[in-house]
């Protein structure tokens, strides 16, 4: 307890089972401000499940997750307010424009800077697209709308599930520099991706071998 209380996020002995079949167990991890943790593992190994456990959307069958030394179930609201999660499905409404989508996400979800919406859209390359409905966007542009949240988010904990999907090379490097900036300011990133990151200081955790190593 005293050990984990010093770290921002700590996972103790986490296990998850669905309908009596165990997906993983005995996961122990501590992540601090300034860390980028990349969850690795083959398709179906449970990366998404682990991230959703972290968000509190799923309940672990054993073990627990501590935020600032306290179980997240005990200071749930602080934890959620400090968290930003972008999953496989980017939560972009097809009938709304990019700007409306972003504005709404900012209003409803985590701590964010409300003024910078238009700037953020411009930065992810959607400057000319802010007033057309999102269903006319291409696959990558669609994901970029969601990723623009990162540019205005003030949350400390970022959980990103395969954020590089459908993003072109220029976008990937933009996103990586954004992550770098976030951790430089004391934030924390847990992400899953099958691509290798061009960032230093990334810690990798392999779900299958349950081994952690530094890149």
């Amino acid at each position, binding site marked *: 307890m005293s050990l984990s209380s010093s770290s921002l996020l700590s996972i103790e002995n986490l296990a998850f089972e*669905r*309908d*009596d*079949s165990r997906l993983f167990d005995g996961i122990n991890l501590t992540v601090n401000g300034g860390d980028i943790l990349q969850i690795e593992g083959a398709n179906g190994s449970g990366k998404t499940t682990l991230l959703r456990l972290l968000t509190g959307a799923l309940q672990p069958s054993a073990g627990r997750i501590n935020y600032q030394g306290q179980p997240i179930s005990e200071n749930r609201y602080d934890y959620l307010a400090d968290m930003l999660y972008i999953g496989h499905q980017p939560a972009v409404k097809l009938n709304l424009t990019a700007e409306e989508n972003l504005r709404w996400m900012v209003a409803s979800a985590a701590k964010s800077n409300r003024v910078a919406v238009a700037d953020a859209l411009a930065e992810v390359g959607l400057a000319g697209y802010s007033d057309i409905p999102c269903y006319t966007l291409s696959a990558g542009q669609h994901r970029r709308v969601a990723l623009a949240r990162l540019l205005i988010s003030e949350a400390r904990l970022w959980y990103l599930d395969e954020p590089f999907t459908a993003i072109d090379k220029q976008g990937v490097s933009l996103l990586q520099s954004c992550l770098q900036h976030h951790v430089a300011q004391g934030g924390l990133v847990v992400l899953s991706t099958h691509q290798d990151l061009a960032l230093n200081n990334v810690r990798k955790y392999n779900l299958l071998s349950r081994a952690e190593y530094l890149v």
Partner: protein
Amino acid sequence: MNLFSDWTWFHRLGSPRWFYQNSGRWLPWLSVVTLVVLATGLVWGLAFAPADAKQGNSFRIIYIHVPASFLALAGYYIMAIAGAVGLIWKMKLSYMVMKSAAPIGAVLTFIALFTGAVWGKPTWGTYWVWDARITSMLILLFLYAGVMALQYAYHSVDAASKAGAILALVGTVNIPIIYKSVDWWYTLHQPATIKLTSAPSMHPDMFQPLLVMIAGFYLFYALVLILQTRNEILRRERNTSWVRELAAAKMTTNTIANEAKSE
């Protein structure tokens, strides 16, 4: 300490394995008692009770109709309470009871409706009227059907249990409202042309076998519920070691028996 020991029985009761093994011990006794009571009631009601002055022998359907109606209603509350216990104490056994109770209740409701309809033809001259009690019985059937449909629809057992429990609970809040409103609606719209003989001053000779039948139906309900729950336990826990051992033991006794036979 005292409190703790108080809770251990509760959690033991919640263990499917404990339930399976103990219910196995009571089952033979329960089935014998059920059989005796039901047989007594049936023979008494069908053969010995006097025929009705107006309806003749067709009234004897009451010995099925009334107990089935009683249990159909009581069964909903049993199901809903089981669901609530599951939601509150996260008890798996309780969800299994809930799931098992739904089809039994639905069948009993259907029997009540069917026997009522069959009885209606000779007494009222029609199979169906929009009487308050009949209508609310039909709605009860829908409520059962909803819980069952949710159980089948979900692939995940966990989600199915919770969804079913929530629906059952919402239904419990609604059942009194539904009954009240249907009752009220019926009395509002039309004068009672035909009414169920309400709490009839029945002849004791007719009434006593009815009481026996009601008791028999309660026992029968309990028996079927336990059997269904046991099946459900085996199905859900088929991957646990104790069910595997049980199956293996069955297999060996069977093969031994077969070998003994063939020799």
